[in-house]
């Protein structure tokens, strides 16, 4: 047997899967060939190192909310109506642990900060945060500052330069060392600022998906009607021709703000963005279209009693978080009706009850929100 034969059989020899006569032939060759013994020793050393690798690895973020949200969207109705399915409103033990979420948020902040420090200290990534905006891949036609990009080269995205995808085209970006972005067809995106402690984009139209692993409030996307501030997450953000849009969060949390309104949208929830008004009321992703249409009218301060009547008639489909935001945005008798409905679905903590729910001020509402278990109020 030649050395080249032995070299090609080393893996099977190590694993003991050769036929007996070949196993013996390799063994005999090894006895008299020093270079093949050295190769076997190197192979054993690699095998020993490989065997030490952990079989399990922890993702940098909790993937469960995204899984839960996707199953919730896909699940057949008969399964969704099973007694313990998907945190049904009458479930005495909600799916999300009420104590766990504030801890998760704190943990995600600490983890993200640790990862950023680790990332920046790594010699290979010393420049990642400073020079890390690249168009990594393109499908179809995309333009950077008006110039057609030719895949598969990587193109640097400079501050103030516009990246545009044409119909049917997609682009994938490395996002300043803090994550990745995919840009859907017919989108227009600009890098406003990269550096310091901020990565700021403008999405003028179209859709992006952001997968970010940075400490909260570093990655920010401006749209014509609201600004999306990353709190550690994966999300889709869309802007239509009129400047309205929507946000769908898969994992983590995203804060939507404009000059007057602030909404924190958790994983598994979506939120409309209204031109001229800003962020709407968050709702569980996959809610019926009719429900979201009524919510749109509610967001637009439609005072027609039909709007509230229809929404409250569908209270079973409204998530507790949606109702909470509706309470926050309403006044007068409408507010009292909503407080009553929310209280029937998620009873207010005793201390709030003793203070009188009718008071309904911001401090009380925030305590009630924290008791719902979606997040601690950032």
């Amino acid at each position, binding site marked *: 047997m030649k050395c080249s034969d032995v070299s090609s059989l080393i893996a099977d020899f190590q694993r003991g899967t050769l036929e007996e006569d070949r196993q013996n032939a390799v063994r005999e060759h090894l006895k008299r060939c020093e270079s093949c013994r050295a190769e076997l020793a*190197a192979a054993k050393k690699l095998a020993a190192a490989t065997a030490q690798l952990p*079989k399990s690895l922890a993702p940098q*973020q909790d993937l469960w909310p995204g899984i839960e949200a996707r*199953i919730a969207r896909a699940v057949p109705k008969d*399964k969704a109506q099973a007694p313990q399915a998907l945190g049904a409103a009458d479930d005495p033990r909600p*799916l999300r642990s009420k104590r766990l979420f504030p801890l998760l948020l704190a943990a995600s902040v600490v983890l993200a900060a640790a990862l950023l420090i680790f990332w920046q200290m790594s010699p290979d*990534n010393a420049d990642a945060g400073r020079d890390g905006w690249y168009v990594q*891949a393109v499908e179809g036609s995309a333009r950077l500052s008006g110039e057609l990009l030719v895949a598969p080269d990587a193109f640097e995205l400079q501050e103030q330069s516009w990246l545009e995808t044409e119909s049917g085209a997609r682009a994938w970006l490395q996002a300043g060392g803090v994550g990745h972005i995919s840009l859907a067809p017919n989108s227009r995106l600009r890098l406003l600022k990269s550096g310091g402690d901020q990565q700021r984009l403008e999405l003028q139209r179209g859709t992006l998906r952001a997968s970010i692993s940075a400490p909260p409030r570093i990655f920010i996307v401006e749209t014509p009607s609201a600004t999306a501030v990353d709190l550690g997450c994966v999300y889709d953000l869309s802007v239509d021709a009129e400047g309205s849009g929507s946000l769908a969060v898969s994992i983590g949390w995203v804060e939507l703000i404009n000059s007057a309104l602030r909404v924190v949208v958790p994983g598994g929830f979506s939120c409309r963005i209204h031109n001229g008004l800003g962020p709407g009321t968050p709702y569980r992703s996959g809610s019926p279209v009719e429900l979201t249409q009524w919510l749109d009218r509610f967001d637009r301060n439609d005072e027609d009693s039909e709007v509230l009547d229809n929404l409250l008639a569908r209270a079973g489909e409204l998530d507790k978080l949606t109702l909470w935001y509706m309470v926050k945005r309403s006044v007068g008798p409408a507010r009292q009706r909503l407080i009553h409905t929310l209280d029937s679905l998620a009873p207010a903590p005793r201390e709030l009850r003793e203070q009188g729910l009718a008071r309904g001020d911001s401090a009380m509402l925030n305590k009630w929100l924290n008791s719902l278990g979606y997040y601690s109020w950032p």
Partner: protein
Amino acid sequence: MHKLFLKQHRERRISSSEQSDIRSAESATIARVRAGDMRAYRELYQRHGRRVYALCLRMTADRAWAEELTQDVFVRAWERLDGFRGEAAFGTWLHRLSVNLVLTAMRGERRRQHNTAAAAEAMSPGTSYGEKDVAVALDLERAIAALPERARMVFVLYDIEGFTHAEIASMLGLAVGTSKGQLHRARVLLREVLQ
């Protein structure tokens, strides 16, 4: 048989009575999932999620993609749970499902430009490397992530996941000899890291 030995050797040795207890506890959990109990499914995710993620990350060398694929696996497993008959352990069934899904995704999707540094970095936190071997392990993870795609896939499936060349050749649509050649190539490249 040898594959089974390797798996048992690498993981903690578990007695047959412990295995039986685990199987029956898992059967009860799966029955709850079939009844629509998402808390039970979350338990399964917590038990197996990191194992699935490790496979996805090492195969793709792309953290974001690995996260997506891990989610895909658990959504697909939920959809297909009726097809799980309990003949094998749930973990075995899920692992095979994961491998198939990852390979399908890698065949069908665009070629992603993976960031090997990011992939290696993603492997370090929260993992349980032995203290004295952590530098070697991280170097090795980084080198695996930097391997040419096919060599990496064969190496991960053969040397880490314990599949045979015949199984890998079947899964990847290769000749057995090609699978062996790719493993040889991967090992030669990785040995340099350890020298």
